[in-house]
């Protein structure tokens, strides 16, 4: 019964979305307020219906209703409750339902809180949003119904892929989707603006918080995925330039560019056409990412769908959305003139430079990701484009931007001078030189490592200098500086935190990428191996039962210079339902690096095991840096000027405060 109710709610949602996609848009064209007014209730109704559908599927998973195919394929009665729930989106059908749920949620938020929006813009944006939703509903109902029944129902389910039974991964897909789908708001507003032929400060104030929100979730989602890969796959790496990782990284690059160009539209009413274009590109890359991941054209743990009809449907959806929106942009885009001019050396110039680098880098990553597909489609043989390609192209491209990132915020709007800005950064120069010297003395001259550390220090110090300049530290009495610090707008704090976080992340990536120490060997109980000053003594293994798996757990005592540090317990688990083993790395994080131990297979009669021991320097800095970046985004989002739903209200309040 529950499954049928969910299916019915989903079908109803399709019809509501179809109405929402057409009536308000037609109303806006005819300037008919009654038709436009359909948009808001329709968006709310659509959300409620999808929420019911999602609730039904979740109920089916939680109660282990094995008459539903999706539950049979991805659940099992012995599975812990958290993974029963995460199993809802741990499969193709359910993940699509999550996608439309988030999309409908965002639409409903605009409908409820968008009271200050011009009615025509709101009607059009909600219509565009509903058009994309219609595509997804059709896709689900026609090719991937999450509520499909099985007759007769089996006794038990086939369980979720054990690799996905992990707390990090339970929240990875929802985070990522909140990011992907969040960019659909920027997209809908961009298309609405193109239809209207008008982009102004108010428009940018609406688009920015949505983009920022989406960016925060996407950043966190990518980091969660990378963290999961780090501790779960047991290779000691965190980023493999796998096509599926790239699929989430591409919208991030474009979205970051969009975030920065929207600032220029808001502050200076320049770069309008470019910003609209970026909004289209960002969401298109989100859709492309979904397509790459879901269609099964790429070989990966994420590829659920292998049914070719689904691939064709997504491809058509992709062509319609991307092709249609770019065609609209080609037609209407030239009317979005930006009257305001600026010098190349200026804040706008810096932001535009960021945009150019980000888009070039995104294009390079896209090329590397799609090249194997293109080559094969043209009959050129099978190739793989791996990490060496991306390291050799992406990293050098980003360097100039990272260096410029410390300077850009020091420049003033419209026109500026490079020399005073650089003069004020002398302290950052000095800090970079000092850190470089220390690292060189400690670690030796790995050129790439030194370069990475230098860039990270430069960016971090430059960001701090910019904040110090802002509060005029040592220029005015300390108390005055403190007062200025408190009064600094939250959006400025957001920028400072995000840039500083990126610097910390780069230091982490450099450390873990360049100075990683790795040792693979066979160890008998009692053997000791030393990795980067840490002596690991293998004590042997024992069998440990888990809720739905059996594990072999090894014990390592770790000493450094004769002092006990910690005991590590890496595991090798075996999940009987899917007959699949997983590796659980044991990690002991320290400030300067992670101790990381993995066991492989048994090697011989005397209790010997293959072991893999790592020292991953600074790897924790990477996650910490990403958290600081996300925090920066959140702080910026809390700035009252950008508060979702209150862009105009606050301005009015400010005006009344000024006149009072």
């Amino acid at each position, binding site marked *: 019964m529950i499954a049928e109710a969910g299916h019915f709610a989903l079908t109803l949602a399709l019809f509501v979305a179809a109405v929402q996609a057409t009536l308000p848009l037609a109303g806006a064209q005819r300037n008919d307020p009654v038709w436009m007014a359909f948009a808001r209730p329709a968006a709310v109704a659509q959300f409620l219906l999808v929420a019911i559908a999602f609730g039904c599927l979740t109920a089916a998973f939680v109660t282990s209703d094995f008459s539903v195919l999706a539950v049979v394929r991805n659940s099992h009665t012995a599975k812990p409750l958290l993974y029963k729930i995460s199993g809802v989106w741990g499969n193709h059908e359910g993940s699509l339902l999550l996608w439309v749920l988030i999309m409908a949620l965002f639409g409903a938020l605009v409908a409820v809180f968008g009271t200050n929006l011009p009615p025509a813009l709101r009607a059009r944006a909600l219509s565009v949003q509903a058009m994309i939703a219609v595509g997804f509903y059709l896709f689900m109902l026609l090719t991937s119904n999450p509520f499909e029944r099985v007759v007769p129902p089996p006794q038990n389910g086939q369980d979720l*892929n054990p*690799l996905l039974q992990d707390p990090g991964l339970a929240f990875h897909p929802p985070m990522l989707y909140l990011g992907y789908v969040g960019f659909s708001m920027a997209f809908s507003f961009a298309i609405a603006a193109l239809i209207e032929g008008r982009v102004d400060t108010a428009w940018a104030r609406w688009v920015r918080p949505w983009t920022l929100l989406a960016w925060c979730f996407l950043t966190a989602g990518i980091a969660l995925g990378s963290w999961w890969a780090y501790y779960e796959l*047991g290779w000691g790496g965190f980023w493999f330039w796998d096509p599926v990782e790239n699929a989430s990284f591409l919208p991030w690059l474009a979205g970051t560019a969009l975030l920065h160009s929207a600032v220029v539209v808001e502050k200076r009413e320049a770069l309008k056409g470019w910003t609209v274009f970026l909004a289209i590109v960002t969401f298109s890359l989100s859709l492309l990412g979904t397509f790459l991941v879901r269609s099964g054209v790429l*070989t990966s*743990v994420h590829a659920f769908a292998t049914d070719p009809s689904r691939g064709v449907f997504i491809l058509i959806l992709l062509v319609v959305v991307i092709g249609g929106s770019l065609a609209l942009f080609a037609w209407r885009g030239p009317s979005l003139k930006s009257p305001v*001019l*600026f*010098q*190349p050396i200026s804040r706008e*110039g810096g932001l*535009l*430079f960021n945009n*150019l*680098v980000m888009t*070039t*880098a995104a*294009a*390079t990553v896209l*090329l*590397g990701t799609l*090249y194997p597909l293109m080559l094969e489609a043209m009959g050129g*043989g*099978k*190739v*793989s*484009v*791996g990490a*060496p*390609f991306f390291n*050799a*192209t992406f990293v*050098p*491209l980003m360097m100039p931007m990272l260096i410029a990132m410390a300077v850009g915020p020091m420049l003033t709007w419209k026109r500026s001078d490079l020399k005073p800005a650089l003069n004020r950064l002398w302290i950052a120069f000095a800090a970079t030189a000092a850190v470089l010297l220390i690292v060189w003395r400690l670690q030796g001259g790995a050129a790439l490592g030194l370069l990475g550390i230098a860039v990270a220090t430069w960016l971090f110090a430059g960001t701090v200098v910019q904040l110090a300049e802002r509060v005029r530290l040592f220029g005015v009495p300390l108390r005055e500086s403190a007062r200025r610090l408190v009064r600094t707008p939250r959006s400025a704090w957001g920028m400072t935190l995000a840039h500083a976080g990126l610097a910390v992340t780069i230091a982490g990536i450099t450390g873990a990428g360049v100075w990683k120490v790795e040792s*693979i*060997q*066979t160890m008998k109980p009692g053997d000791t191996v030393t990795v980067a000053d840490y002596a690991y003594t293998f004590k042997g293994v024992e069998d440990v039962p888990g809720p739905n798996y059996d594990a072999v757990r090894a014990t390592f005592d770790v000493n450094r210079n004769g002092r006990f540090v910690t005991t590590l317990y890496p595991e090798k688990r075996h999940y009987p339902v*899917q*007959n*699949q*083993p*997983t*590796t659980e790395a044991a990690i002991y994080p320290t400030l300067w690096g992670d101790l990381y131990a*993995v066991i*492989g*297979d048994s*090697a011989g009669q005397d209790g010997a095991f*293959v072991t*893999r021991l790592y020292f991953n320097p600074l790897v924790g800095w990477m996650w910490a840096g990403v958290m600081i970046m996300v925090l920066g985004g959140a702080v910026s989002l809390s700035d009252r000027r950008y508060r979702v739903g209150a862009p105009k209200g606050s301005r009015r309040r400010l005006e009344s405060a000024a006149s009072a």
Partner: protein
Amino acid sequence: MKRKHKRLTFVLIALALLATSAALVLTAFEESIVFFHSPSDIVAEKVPLDRRLRLGGLVEQGSVVKKPDAVVTFRITDTAHAVAVTYKGILPDLFREGQGVVAEGRLIDGVFTADEVLAKHDENYMPPEVADAIKKAGQWRGEEKP
């Protein structure tokens, strides 16, 4: 600066970035693209020896030998021909005899020395490259379980 000149500055920056990325992409393609080959290709000596390459197929039944120092040797077959592989390290969780795998490395004296072995995360799943290689060798039996 005149409006035209300002625009020109950014166009020049964009062109410089594009040229840089094109140069980087071309050199990187030259050095880091890895071609996929089947065991039959290698036996037929259709493979360049000075490049990294990927070798895909099934792990031959009974061929896996574990040696000291975490070295493993096995044979990858497309059911027509097989190639000996040696690898040092921990094999992926789903590495099993009879299972589809992809190994990346170099061919040294007729032995494929892998520095990376990929087995996919689902036991019913066959990497498309491997499936194609086996199809080419004319030994494909059905879509579901090869």
